[in-house]
């Protein structure tokens, strides 16, 4: 392929892209609201999950998150509970200073084979990411890690 063909191809691809995105924005038109959704602070989210029970720190909960996240909009978080899957009912991921601290809750069954979840979350500022594991005997264990954010991700 020579230079001219390459340039032509690139121009076509770009026009295709802009056409595509204008189509997309029509399909998913943005709705507006007068007020933001209600705030859910960390204590409230914690109470919702545990019902007021105590949560103990445990090294059985492995929380992998970066120490410094350059972009708060995409922070990779992985949680694994090193216990047999039969003993783990759910994993909850919380971000303690977000508008809605309760980020994600995952309920497992023995068919999962392993209590593991990996995702990407938003952090509005530097804060603690908390992973709480709900065990089959009704108790809760957790691990937490501070994450420094250079650019916030919640708008």
């Amino acid at each position, binding site marked *: 392929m020579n230079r001219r063909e390459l340039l032509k191809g690139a121009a076509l691809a770009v026009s295709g892209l802009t056409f595509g995105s204008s189509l997309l924005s029509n399909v998913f038109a943005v709705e507006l609201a007068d007020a933001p*959704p209600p705030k859910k602070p960390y204590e409230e989210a914690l109470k919702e999950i545990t019902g007021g029970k105590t949560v103990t720190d445990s090294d059985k909960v492995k929380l992998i998150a970066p120490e410094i996240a350059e972009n708060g909009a995409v922070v990779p978080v992985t949680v694994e509970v090193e216990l047999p899957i039969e003993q783990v009912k759910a994993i909850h991921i919380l971000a303690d200073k977000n508008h809605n601290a309760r980020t994600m809750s995952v309920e497992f069954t023995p068919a999962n084979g392993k209590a593991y979840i990996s995702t990407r*979350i938003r952090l509005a500022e530097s804060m603690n990411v908390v992973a709480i594991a709900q065990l089959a005997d009704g108790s809760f264990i957790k691990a937490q890690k501070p994450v420094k954010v250079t650019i916030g991700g919640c708008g």
Partner: protein
Amino acid sequence: MPRTAMVKIDPKDYKKDDLIKVNTVIMHPMDTGLVKDKESGKYIAANHITDVEVYYGDERITTMKLSGSVSANPFISFYVKATKTAPLKIIWKDNKGDVTEKVIDINVG
């Protein structure tokens, strides 16, 4: 309207009772409802995935609840134990009633 979603499993070669990692991603803006629209000064309404359900055959094996604090185009990975030959169905639901479904086959021969 269903959205674009992808499901990939790792490893591709597995035997009965192996643990399979399921990687999923769905194209979704995950609007938190906290961002202001520059023209009108109003808030862009919250529009995010609230529920992800995973079915293995007839059994629902994993239930997830998401909030707007999950990144746009949410990537989620989890494990499944390949105990039987059955379809693995993943259903994403958002707070506006949008439902997306994706099915892959688990084949243990």
